[in-house]
């Protein structure tokens, strides 16, 4: 589904992704964790080419995304992306947020797009907020709208960049619940998060990133209970004392 081959990225002289190789299968849920600045966000932002890479190849569903001839718009419309800061469109209602890309990019008829959006809002638990503006919603509600906005594209994969880090603690669960359900329904997901409960519950694999490399990759139980690398152990001890 998603393949990285020797992917390298620099910001100026800063080498942020170092020879990344990975292969994510359809229906797989992968959690990415690691210290701040290790390149987690950059890793997933390369998948939909929010960040260009300088070396290597990235494939999504068999199509190489880092090639000039690739229709990026089409690839992007098949990838849902959920940002840490939600990035909802503040000038549009919740419903308009969700239907914008289906209508403008996928050319879905408005009526059909709105019906689908209402179904998705119901699924993420906020059917009654369709006509509100994002500023009227709590953080947890915003992030659930953002997930609905992603799902509205009928994506092949959903990417999450620390979806709960900007939320008040009491709102984290409502967002994670939606994500767990999504994972159990078979969505392919890559989730940057330090929520270990989520990782244990639904992840097939956990990646540990440090200084631009995937240092360790394992099943959640192995990863948390028997970490192999020194740096993984050190990192885990920090987030465990934090949680």
């Amino acid at each position, binding site marked *: 589904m998603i393949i990285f081959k020797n992917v390298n990225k620099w910001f100026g002289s800063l080498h942020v992704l170092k020879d990344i190789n990975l292969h994510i299968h359809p229906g797989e849920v992968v959690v990415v964790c690691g210290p701040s600045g290790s390149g987690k966000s950059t890793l997933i932002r390369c998948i939909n080419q929010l960040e260009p890479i300088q070396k290597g190849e990235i494939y999504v569903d068999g199509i190489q995304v880092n090639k000039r001839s690739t229709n990026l718009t089409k690839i992007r419309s098949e990838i849902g992306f959920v940002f840490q800061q939600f*990035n909802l*469109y503040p000038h549009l209602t919740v419903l308009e947020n969700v239907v914008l890309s289906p209508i403008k990019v996928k050319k879905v008829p408005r009526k059909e797009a709105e019906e689908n959006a209402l179904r998705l809002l119901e699924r993420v638990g906020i059917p009654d907020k369709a006509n509100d503006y994002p500023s009227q919603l709590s953080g947890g509600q915003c992030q659930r709208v953002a997930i609905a906005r992603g799902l509205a594209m009928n994506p092949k994969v959903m990417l999450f960049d620390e979806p709960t880090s900007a939320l008040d603690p009491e709102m984290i669960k409502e967002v994670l619940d939606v994500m767990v359900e999504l994972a159990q329904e078979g969505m392919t997901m890559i989730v940057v998060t330090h929520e270990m409960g989520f990782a244990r519950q639904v992840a097939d694999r956990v990646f540990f990133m440090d200084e631009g490399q995937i240092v360790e990759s394992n099943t959640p139980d192995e990863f948390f209970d028997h970490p192999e690398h020194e740096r993984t152990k050190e990192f885990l001890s920090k987030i465990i004392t934090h949680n």
Partner: protein
Amino acid sequence: MIAVYFKGLMHTFPLFLKGLWVTILVSGVSLLAGTLLGVICGILRTVKKWGISKIMGFYADYMRGVPFLVHIFIIYFILPEVGIQLDPFPAATIALTIYAGAYISEIVAAGILSVPKGQWEAATAYGLNPFQRLRYVIFPQAIRVILPPLVGEYVLLVKDSSIVSVIGLTDVTRVGWLTVQRIPEGLMVFGLVGILYFVVCYPMIHLSHYLEEKVSYESH
């Protein structure tokens, strides 16, 4: 004496209205064309590629750094030297357009840059093409920042258009000049000219204030 002058002035009043119409026409056309030019250049100003932004920046700086009077001289008196001869009206309109366009491009660029980066990223990640990103996501948010100073710029445009009288366009200012030669009561004549400008600009100033308040009220 004053009464006679006043009567004479009233007699020429239709000429003043004609002049006012020329003022409105020349600034109205420049306003529309300048807005179009300014929006395009303002958008290009935010393109971080191929030095486009630098070129647009230079255009804006050049226009701001040279007096409008000099621009209009260049277009009306110097361009004919290289074979480009323009009538006063097109010369005035072109000069005002590229002048206002420069200021408007700055306003538009500032508005676009005021929209958080995350909005671009979301619009990009959700498959919108560059035009759609601007049209549906960035512009509707930028317009709140753009509108108040834009209307302010229109007021300046109407006032600056008075300078086009130097190349013989019979706008309301030039009607004033012509009249004062027959009716040597400067205060009265240019008082009337001033009032006529004010009548056009005052509602615009109010609109600008209104938009400013509306924007600050809505942004929570």
